[in-house]
Structures are given as C-alpha cells and as structure tokens.
C-alpha cells in the first residue's frame, strides 16, 4: 500500500469485497467500544483513511506488551490494522538491526514530520543514562528526539503510562512515565500489565479511523475502555452485594465462584475493560479464573501492599507503634492523675496551714 493511498482504494485493489470490509468495520467498531450503529460511520471514515506511519520505541520493559499484542485473539483484524499502518520501527518485530534500524527510524521521522504516531512501551530511567540505551543513545534522548515530530504518543503498558514495575519502590533507576517527560504532545495512556491487546488495537483503530485520539480520563486513558471499574462490570458483583465471599482460594465460596473482595481483589479501584473484553480469545479474565484483580492498570499498583490485602484494610506499619502509643498514653494518664493528686494535697495542706 502506498502511503498516500486511502485504505478503501487499497482494499478494493486487493480484491476485498465490500461485505468483507463491512465485517471488518463492525468488528472494529466493537473493538473501539462503539455502539454497533457506528459501523457505517467507521466504514466511511476508514475507506477514506490514509496510512499513518508508526514508530514504536521500547525502553525499560519486558516485551510483555508486544507479546500481548502479537498474540491477540483477532489476528486477521490486527493484520489488517497493521496493513493499514506503516510500522516503520519496532525493535522486536523489525527485520533490520544496528545502523540500518536506526536509519529507518530517522527516515520515518523525516518523511512524516509532524504526522507520525509514536508508540512507547517501557519506562524511562532518569538516573544513570547508561541504565538503558539503544544504539548508544539513552532512552531519554531517544524519546525526546522521536517525540519532537510526532502527531501524538500512545504510551502502551503501565510502565510507559505510569512508570510501572521499574518505578516501584525504591525505584533504583529513577524510572518515570512518558508523560513526565513529554508535556507538549497529546498522550494516550493504554495501561495494563500487559494491556488488553484489543485495547491497544482499538486505540490504533480510533486514530486510523477518525484521525484523532479518543476521549481520555483524568489519567489520560481512553474512557471507552477505562471508564468503568472492574467491580462495577464484574459478574461476581451480586455476591458482593449479598455478602457472599470466598475466604480462601479453596473453600466453598471459592468453588461456588463468590466475590473475591476478602482475598484482596482490587476490582473496585481498578479501571479497565477486562470484565467485558476478557482475555485469551474472550475466554476469561483473572476474576473469572478464580483470582482477584491485581489492579495492574492503575498507577503504583506494585506498591499498594500485598495483592492479597483487602482494599478496606489499612496499609500501615506495625502494631508495635500502637502498643508504644498505648504505653505513652497510659504513662501520661497516670502521671497527670498523680500530679493532680499532688496539687490537691498541696492545696489542702496550704488551706490547713492558713486555718
């Protein structure tokens, strides 16, 4: 596909029928969490869409986000979307290496100045620049250089969106999120560890379809996918209301599929689409598989105490401090009572002396 050809013309030339294209569009509308009635609108927009250049940078990360995306359950859809974009640079997926890989990035940047989409996974270390480098260039420099000419940035995964696991206390590398460095570009945070693959492609599809970024919440995440918490969309919610909880992972309640709140489920404070989109070809999601939500799409999810501590429990240091406070309080109480007695005795003595 030539860069300035529209997707409609391209698909027509490939012999893709209108009916097949409409099937693709209704699946894409569903992917973007749009109502089914939006499929026609998507079709019209996609037919006229031009192929954007995408540069994908990977910093302090585990490649889990790329794994999630490439193993996603809609390969034909993904391949079409990837056909529809021009992925000009991606460490893990590109064939080129060394100088020629970097040359591809520079070429894509120059050719599409101000128009390309930058996707970032991984956090950026602000400590020693040597903690993470690519072709001798620090992550910070590469991000700044590449973000300069980008139309928008998609921060994929909790590391790029909020710092993620590298940012976990004590944050040895001084890891930060993309938005802490780049402040003059539109940024979409697609958080999750990893993010739901269809959410990544959903955001790409939105950009491809409408040429704009979707509506975002206060943490910069697309509202269509992160607008509701797991708890509100959870099929186990009725058990919460009825007060039916699993107390351990193998008790009666666990076997009956009751609510996992007591086992530390972070569903009530976690915003993501797992409960409806689900994972592994729509098979399941953690709660449906019997484990509470870890809250992986929220900032600092790694530093919120144990995954198995219920969210209504305190996250506090020790009982020893309370015992200390009790001892100090008791000492002060006894002391003040004794002092008061002494004062009274003295006053009485003075009274007697006077009389």
């Amino acid at each position, binding site marked *: 596909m030539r860069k300035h050809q529209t997707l409609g013309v391209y698909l027509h030339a490939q012999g893709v029928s209108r009916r097949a294209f409409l099937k693709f569009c209704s699946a894409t509308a569903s992917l973007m969490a749009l109502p089914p009635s939006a499929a026609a609108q998507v079709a019209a927009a996609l037919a006229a869409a031009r192929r954007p250049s995408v540069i994908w940078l990977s910093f302090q990360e585990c490649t889990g986000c790329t794994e999630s995306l490439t193993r996603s359950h809609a390969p034909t859809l993904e391949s079409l979307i990837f056909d529809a974009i021009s992925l000009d640079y991606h460490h893990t997926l590109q064939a080129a290496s060394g100088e020629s890989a970097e040359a591809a990035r520079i070429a894509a940047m120059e050719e599409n100045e101000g128009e390309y989409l930058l996707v970032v996974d991984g956090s950026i270390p602000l400590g020693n620049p040597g903690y993470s480098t690519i072709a001798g260039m620090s992550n910070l420099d590469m991000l700044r250089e590449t973000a300069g000419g980008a139309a928008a940035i998609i921060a994929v995964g909790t590391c790029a969106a909020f710092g993620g696991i590298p940012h976990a206390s004590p944050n040895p590398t001084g890891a930060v999120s993309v938005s802490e460095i780049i402040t003059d570009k539109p940024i979409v945070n697609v958080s999750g560890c990893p993010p739901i693959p269809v959410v990544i492609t959903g955001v790409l599809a939105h950009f491809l379809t409408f040429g704009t970024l979707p509506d975002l919440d206060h943490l910069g995440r697309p509202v269509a996918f992160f607008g509701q*918490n797991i*708890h*509100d969309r959870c099929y186990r919610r009725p058990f*919460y*209301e*009825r*007060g039916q*909880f699993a107390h351990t992972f193998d008790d009666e309640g666990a076997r009956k599929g009751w609510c996992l*709140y*007591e086992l530390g489920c972070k569903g*009530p*404070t976690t915003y993501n689409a797992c409960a409806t989109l689900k994972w592994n070809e729509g098979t399941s999601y953690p709660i449906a598989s019997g484990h509470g939500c870890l809250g992986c799409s929220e*900032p*600092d999810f790694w530093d*919120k105490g144990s995954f198995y*501590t*219920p*969210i*209504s*429990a*305190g*996250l*506090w*240091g020790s*009982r020893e*401090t*309370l015992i200390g*406070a*009790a001892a*100090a*309080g*008791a000492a*002060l*109480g*006894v002391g*003040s*009572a*004794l002092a*008061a*007695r002494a004062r009274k005795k003295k006053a009485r003595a003075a009274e007697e002396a006077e009389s």
Partner: protein
Amino acid sequence: MTLLDFARGPALQWSLIILVFGVLWQLLGTILIGVKKDLSKPRRNTAVRDGLATIATRSLPEHQFEKKIRFQHFSGYAWHVALFIAVLFSAPHILFFESVLGFGWPHLPNGIILVTAAIALAILFALVIRRLSHPVQRLISNADDYISVIVVIVPLVTGMLASAHIGARYETLLAIHFLSVEALFVWFPFGKLMHTALTFPSRFRAGAAFGRRGVKA
C-alpha cells in the same frame, strides 16, 4: 501517593496512634485522679452492688419522667444499636478490624448494612433537630456536642456513598470515608465521644457514692 494510599497508610497510622494515646491518657487520668476521702460513716457497705445497680437503673427511663423522655431514650438506644450493627457487621469493616486487631467475625449482607446505616442516620438527624429546637437541650449543648455529631455523621454518609458507588469514583469515596473515620479517631479522646468509655464507670461511681449515703441514685 494517591489520596486513598494516604488515607489507608500514614493518616490511618497517625490517627490510631492519637486515638490509643488519647483514650488511655483520658481514661487513666480520670479514673486515677481519686476523690476526696469520705470521712462519714457509710449507711451501708454495698458499694459494688449499688454501683452495678445504678448502671442498670440509669439504662432505663426514670419512671417519673418516662412520658417526657421516652422518645429521647428509645431513639438513643435505636441509634446506638443501628450504629453498632453498621460498624461491626459490615464485611469491609470486619476486614479492616482484622487488619488492625488480627481477628475477624461473621458479617451481614451489604443490603442489611445499608438499611441499618440509613436508619441510624435518620435517627441521628432527628436527635440533632431536637437538640437544636428544644430550648433546654440547646442551652446545655456546646461546640463539643456538635463537633461530636458531625464526626459521626460524615463517616456514616461517606460509608453509604462508598458502598453504593454514588457521587464520585469508588477510590475517592473510600478515601474520604477513611479520612472521615480518622477525623473521628482523632476527636474521640478529647470530646464527648469519650462517653463510650466513661458512661458505665461514671454511673458505677455515682451509684456507689450515693449508696454509701443511703440515697437512691
């Protein structure tokens, strides 16, 4: 650190430290202060029995005033019972107590807790309106009474909102609920909420002293 992390972490820790410190200070300071030795000959030597009897008799409305104080008396009971059910038998609360005390107990369904909390809130509002409209009650009320009522009302309201997910995002509601309870913890030892700890000891002491003089307490 998010508001919820702050509320569940340092704010909780410090409010509990103040609560425990303050309660023991106030309690021991009050109990050990001692009273002037009564040199008179006791009419009877039944101090413990008289003390316990007074705890019981003052827990029922005084016969002569029964008509006048019936509403006040029984709405007070209903308020306390409803509050205790909502506080002690809500599943999230028990998990909280378990995290502080190290043990838990069975809970009631959410729906029952919500209804109980609503009843408690309605009674408390009625009592506050009465306090404001009744000339004598208004005269004997001071800032302490109103602050104590507010620090109890706010956790009740925020708890119900958090439970029903109304008004804001759950984590915000939960954080505000935590913080409001922490405000209660901090105020508790220094205001009239200390009646929780002092009601029965003071009834006992009054009963014992009156009994010594052969007077009905």
